[in-house]
């Protein structure tokens, strides 16, 4: 009797203390933790490596462990736990396994291995028998670890993930001794950047948009064109445009180019992109669930469109504001029709806007709306991708005479005329001169030729070798009959009584010592003034961002800009400005640069904005490989390459193309594309596919 009473008393006391304590010491805990804990075996066995079931559940919620963490409860519980994690709007995206190494097993052997057929066993001997220290060993531990049959060893000896079967349990990642299998959500994939410890081919290291080039070329080779499009689109939403206008810095670093001609990477991109457009259907682009955050993107050019595209896919609501009637920015109004047809561009932009991006056109920041109105309308962050639209002046006498234009002004007005604004028509002269040596200058001369100008010349103060324009563009202009006046610096513009331009006086130059940019500085020759007759003059000597909006606002006046008028990002990798909720990217951050540079900047800014919106610190990528190459990956020789000509770009014949604005460059034929894709050696950091050289 006493015993019973005593136990009752003890029970009541303990219960009371605990219930009071649970009230007093209450701390908020993610409800998913207890939900997941209930799904585990509850044995506290520690078999998962965590200290008990609640610790494991907390780890799952924190993303440190996978849903299949409980080894006792089995696959069913794993799915149930995955479902618990899935209902959370932030993580509803499926997590999938992806193999990072595409060809490491083809690296040379260091030694002969005859041990147990297990990657982990082999790794314990000097990190595996391959010379490559980071790549796949190919003995398939991951395949054995997968309980869902989602992995197979592919024909090339490395694991291939079947995404429809993969549940993202992470067993393959955990067993892989080389850490080349990553379990990531789509968002994590979209936001990953080149790191110096990753398996990256030289082309992918060099591409400003960091596209996984070897992967998409391999997909083209295997006939998986849709896969290739998706691979490109994980990094670059403007593949049709880039496939046409990109000066492909990647090809300069192509290892095949060391012994042979580089692989025609950009034409293969265009081939895949055109395949999608011509197939008549758009590939579905998945987006993460809505986050409820609002972002304003100012400027609908390549950087703005890219930033909007990635933010939308990450689940944020995006509105693009643009001062022009249509989106596209410089690639619509600066790049002429014959290089990038407006129909193609429109198809591409429509695809991006179809994700659910709102647009407001014909509104200029600082004039029609401002920072205060954006903040008042509930935007949580702002991306400034205003581009570089202000032409530099030559600062010489007479440059404002009638029939004198600046490059961007001319190209924009002409593009708008072509798109229906006939009141902007520019009268074309007979003898035209364009000052400058960049792509804008080349675009101007090639446009003038097509508009019927009889004589078109380029006046450039250095030589052809120093011209910053793409070589193919220079060559095309030469073929089309443009005259080049090198080593000529304009001195003054001569006009008649009506104020119209009739001549351009220039000084001849000599090349002197190299300047800061490494190019030899032109020095004028005394008394060498020469006059050429012109009745139309275009100045295209460079352009910078137009930051006049700063004068029209109080808060925006604090936005830091550099002396070149570019918007000053605190860190060129995060692209956050001194006003924390304003981010920048593209030409407005770098000064006039490549389209693909703007795309890379747009994605970088999207990552920072995503960090900012989700309350994380805005920090650069760890081990970031920002505009650098990994040591030891740039070879000087590649033995064993059998020379093969690269695919020639099909072009319209000169006499046809100079009379019209039809697209001058054509897409590769299917057979040529497949042949070209098999020229790719599938390089990684130190290995490349020697066996395929003969192919």
């Amino acid at each position: 009797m006493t015993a019973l009473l005593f136990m009752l008393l003890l029970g009541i006391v303990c219960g009371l203390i605990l219930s009071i304590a649970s009230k007093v010491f209450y701390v908020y805990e993610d409800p998913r933790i207890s939900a997941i804990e209930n799904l585990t075996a509850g044995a506290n066995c520690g078999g998962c490596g965590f200290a008990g079931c609640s610790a494991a559940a907390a780890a799952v919620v924190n993303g440190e462990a996978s849903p299949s963490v409980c080894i006792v409860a089995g696959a069913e519980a794993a799915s149930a736990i995955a479902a618990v994690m899935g209902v959370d709007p932030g993580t509803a995206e499926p997590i999938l396994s992806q193999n990072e190494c595409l060809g490491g097993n083809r690296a040379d052997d260091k030694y002969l291995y005859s041990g147990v057929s297990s990657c982990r066993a082999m790794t314990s001997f000097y990190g595996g028998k391959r010379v490559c220290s980071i790549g796949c060993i190919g003995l398939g531990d991951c395949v054995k670890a997968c309980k869902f049959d989602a992995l197979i060893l592919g024909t090339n000896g490395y694991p291939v993930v079947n995404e429809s079967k993969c549940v993202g349990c992470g067993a393959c990642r955990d067993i892989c001794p080389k850490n080349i299998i990553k379990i990531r959500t789509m968002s994590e994939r979209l936001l990953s950047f080149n790191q110096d410890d990753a398996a990256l081919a030289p082309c992918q290291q060099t591409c400003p948009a960091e596209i996984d080039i070897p992967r998409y070329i391999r997909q083209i080779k295997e006939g998986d064109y849709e896969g290739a499009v998706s691979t490109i689109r994980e990094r670059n939403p403007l593949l049709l445009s880039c496939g046409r206008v990109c000066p492909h810095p990647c090809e300069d670093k192509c290892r095949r180019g060391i012994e042979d001609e580089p692989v025609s990477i950009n034409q293969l991109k265009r081939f895949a992109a055109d395949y999608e457009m011509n197939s008549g259907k758009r590939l579905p682009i998945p987006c993460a669930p809505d986050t409820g955050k609002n972002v304003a993107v100012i400027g609908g050019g390549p950087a703005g469109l890219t930033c909007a595209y990635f933010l939308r896919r990450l689940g944020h609501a995006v509105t693009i504001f643009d001062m022009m009637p249509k989106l596209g920015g410089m690639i619509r109004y600066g790049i002429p029709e014959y290089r990038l047809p407006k129909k193609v561009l429109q198809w591409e932009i429509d695809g991006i806007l179809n994700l659910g991006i709102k647009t407001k056109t014909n509104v200029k920041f600082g004039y029609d709306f401002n920072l205060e109105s954006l903040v008042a309308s509930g935007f949580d962050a702002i991306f400034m991708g205003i581009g570089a639209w202000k032409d530099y002046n030559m600062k010489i006498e007479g440059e404002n005479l009638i029939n004198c234009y600046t490059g961007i002004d001319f190209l924009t007005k002409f593009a708008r005329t072509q798109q229906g604004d006939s009141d902007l028509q520019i009268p074309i002269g007979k003898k035209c001169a364009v000052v400058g040596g960049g792509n804008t200058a080349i675009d101007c001369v090639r446009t003038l030729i097509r508009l019927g100008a009889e004589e078109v010349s380029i006046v450039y103060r250095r030589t052809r070798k120093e011209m910053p324009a793409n070589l193919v563009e220079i060559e095309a202009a030469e073929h089309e009959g443009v005259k080049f006046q090198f080593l000529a610096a304009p001195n003054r513009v001569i006009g008649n009584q009506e104020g119209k331009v009739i001549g351009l006086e220039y000084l001849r130059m000599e090349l002197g010592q190299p300047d800061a940019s490494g190019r030899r500085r032109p020095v004028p020759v005394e008394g060498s003034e020469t006059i050429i007759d012109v009745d139309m003059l275009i100045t295209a000597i460079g352009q910078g961002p137009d930051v006049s909006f700063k004068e029209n606002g109080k808060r925006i006046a604090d936005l830091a800009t550099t002396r070149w008028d570019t918007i000053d990002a605190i860190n060129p990798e995060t692209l956050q400005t001194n006003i924390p909720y304003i981010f920048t990217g593209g030409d407005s951050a770098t000064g006039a640069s490549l389209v693909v540079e703007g795309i890379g900047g747009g994605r970088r800014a999207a990552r920072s904005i995503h960090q900012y919106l989700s309350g994380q610190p805005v920090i650069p990528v760890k081990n970031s490989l920002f505009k650098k190459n990994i040591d030891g990956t740039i070879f000087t020789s590649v033995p064993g390459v059998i020379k093969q000509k690269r695919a020639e770009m099909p072009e319209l014949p000169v006499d046809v193309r100079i009379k019209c604005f039809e697209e001058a460059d054509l897409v590769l034929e299917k057979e040529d594309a497949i042949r070209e894709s098999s020229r790719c050696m599938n390089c990684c950091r130190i290995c490349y596919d020697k066996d395929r050289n003969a192919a």
Partner: protein
Amino acid sequence: MGYFELIIACIFVNNILLAQFLGNCPFLGTSKKMETATGMGMAVIFVLVLAGTITWLIYTYVLVKFDLVYLRTIVFIVVIASLVQFVEMFLKKSIPALYAGLGIFLPLITTNCAVLGVCVLNIDKEFTFMQSLVASFAYAAGFALALILFAGVRERILLARVPKPLQDTSIGLVTAGMIALAFYAFKGMV
């Protein structure tokens, strides 16, 4: 017996894991990673010192006084379980830093036989309050020592070529047996 001998006896000679074979489930469960093993060791020290002293107090001043000694086991279980739960809640709210280090191990200890074993041993050997405090600490330190030793060995076993049927827990048990044999050398020292 002096305190020094008591400590040596509890840590080495009568090591709770390797000589008395109590608390084998966390010994195998939390020894896969050195980090987990260290955390668990510290948590056991923390809880055992608390549980050892409180159960001694309850036994001496409640159970003996009311002549309820036969309820010892069941009372100890209830008291230890409540105590651990209470400590967990207290730490979570008041000392989050300590909770981050030890907290996740606490529920694991609720059902740990090593804890109950030490409390019972303290009573059986008729220790004084100070002695049972020291013994509780020393037993727990022995637990932590064995666990950390074992985790170090197991981390190395991961790299070794173990025949398939013996992998993971099996080789763990074999290893545990060998370490226990080694600890047999301490027998008869004190």
